[in-house]
């Protein structure tokens, strides 16, 4: 009996030794939420093909959960922005600003779309960004638009 207890004790002690090295890893503590999230630049069309565009804007770092989403509400009628696209970005807690980039897929060529933008935390809580209604027009089939970075600065 004692021998069995010793064996169980050895197993328990070795187990605790083994799992101890993983316990220091923690979810990074979220940054404090910004009091007010304001767009600093954009939103604008980063690039576009006939059925997919990327909308880009920069705001002050909203803080909160590191996993964040850029959100675009859009539609062909500026009074009915009834479609939503969202794309994941991960905040960098040490950056004063955050670039949001959102993919809008399944669009029609040569069509004007109206949109507003927002961002939200990983749990869906809005950053309550105020954005005017903007618009873009998708190019013709087979065409593409590249606005960023300027072609002269693109790496070869």
């Amino acid at each position: 009996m004692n021998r069995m207890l010793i064996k169980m004790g050895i197993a328990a002690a070795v187990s605790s030794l083994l799992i101890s090295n993983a316990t220091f890893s923690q979810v990074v503590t979220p940054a404090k939420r910004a009091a007010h999230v304001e767009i600093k630049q954009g939103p604008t069309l980063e690039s576009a093909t006939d059925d997919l565009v990327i909308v880009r804007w920069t705001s002050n770092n909203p803080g909160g959960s590191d996993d964040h989403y850029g959100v675009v509400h859009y539609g062909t009628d500026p009074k009915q922005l009834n479609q939503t696209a969202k794309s994941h970005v991960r905040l960098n807690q040490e950056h004063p600003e955050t670039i949001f980039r959102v993919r809008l897929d399944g669009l029609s060529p040569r069509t004007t779309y109206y949109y507003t933008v927002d961002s939200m935390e990983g749990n869906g809580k809005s950053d309550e960004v105020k954005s005017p209604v903007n618009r873009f027009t998708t190019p013709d089939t087979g065409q593409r638009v590249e606005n960023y970075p300027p072609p002269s600065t693109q790496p070869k």
Partner: protein
Amino acid sequence: MKQERTLVALCATCAVLVISMICTTHSVHGQSVLTPPPYNPYPPGILPPDLPSEIERVRREVNFIEKQALTEWEKLPPLNVQGNPPTLQGDGYRTVVVLGKILNYDQNMSPFKDTACAFCHLPYAGFSGPIPSVNLTMIAYPGTYHYRANKRTAMRYTYSPNFPVLEFNNEQGLFFGGNFWDARATGYKIQSPDSEQAQHPPVDTGEMGFPDTACIALRLQTAQYRPLFEAVWGDSLNINFPSDAEAICDTPGGAATLGTSATPIDLTPTERAKANNIYDHWGQSISKFEGSPRVSAFSSKFDAFLAGNYTMTANEMAGYQLFNGKGNCNSCHIDGRSTLCVDQKYGCASNSSSLTDTGTTAQVNPIFSCFGYANEGLPLNPRVAYFYENKPDSFGFIPNPYGFGYRDLGLGTFLRSGFGAAPNPNASWITQAPSVDGQMQVATARDAALAPPQCPTTEAPGPYFQKEFFHNGYIKSLKQLVHFYNTRDVYRFPGVTSGHCPAGTTERVNCWPESEVPDNIDMTTGNLGLTDTEENQIVAFLQTLSDGYTTPYPDINTFTGQCMAGGTAATQGNSSLIPTPPLPPCASAICDVPPIPSPYPIP
């Protein structure tokens, strides 16, 4: 039930006899081992021509290290158990590490006694894949039954024990922790994802391939180092195995003769519990080895830099600032230090030299991972051997019945307990699946650049050691890796698959084929505005993360293969690109499993 088991055992025995009549033999550890004819459903050119000789090379290297580990064990002082709870006083750490190392390099832990865990993870590759030609072509490594292979690259062991148990953080809305690209080693049971990671390959049909976890205990019964295992864990290996256990364990998992049971060896509940304990302790021993300085060494130039004992070159420092600043790499590959980004034009400085790092050391041992998951939008890689494994092998097993209808949804498929993953042990996570389709683990950036001393870089023109990067090995150099993050959305070619970039473009340079999984693509990167020089500087910084600077990296000098040379890092491996065949729709067994991907199905 008993009759079924008897039938299974009889079938297994018969299968071994039949196969033995058509098999060849070769010598392993002085034993004769039967090997069936190779499984080769591949079109010409998928398997690298030097595969047989390279497999033999790696097996020799594994054996060499195993013998060294056994010698180290023989020199250990007698175990000194003291205290209550009983503790291996003095040499407890070292003893468990040595045991883990011996287990990791033991080729007997596979049906044909030809494949150790280490076959896919050797020190000179940062404990990732050790065969340059495999890294260039078929991506996944052949398992015990040649040439079955799985679908993903072998993740580096380094720092994997630092990943915590997989959890979903409701407040942040993210998955965090786990091991494997798809998180299927959660750590839910023994509270160590890395230990549970070690438990998967021995019973993975495409890897070491045992049909039953109890085969580990069976093989340990006759292992030279059995006394060490029993002494460390207090386990008894005196398990009463049935007479057909050897025949079952000599048969690769998935064999039709074994049926569908995950436990074809007929053990009493008491004996099964003993075998399960041994399996847990087997995984924990290996994890202790992987967490030790012999694998996770914290001995890089960067670690010396944090300690004030290394001054980065101008390029390395510029790369470090870009890593934290304009490149935004440390948003996920967290470096433990804070940074400041001063130019507001595009959120970060357009002139990297103006970046000022005003941070202070927040963590002395950063892992360079956020332990999270992301879909980086990599193209489907038609080189992955798995796509061609849609025909039965000589055991009647079909590794991938869906052929090119397979799509790798990573974490999403695991949450659905889907094809090619593992059972999800937490039903409350299933609803999250559509939001994580395509996501793979954010690997540590440490040791991505680690290479053998005689070819000390991963980058052409070298002499270099050919590695593979990301889960599907599509990227062949760190230059390409950084360039992908930098330009994925600049040189995006919708509707174009790998091998079909338009004339006038160069794949991986100014043409990125469409993503295999277009849902949930991470947009933190993809258009960073880095110059060519800045990309190279980030590569220079990544090279400071290779262990072995402050102290020699253990067993680094064991590479006996050939270095590669010539070409450029930007186009490295492009001569091995092949055209993707016309892709059928995603198989319903993968993409039509609830909850269905949203807002629209994956093509």
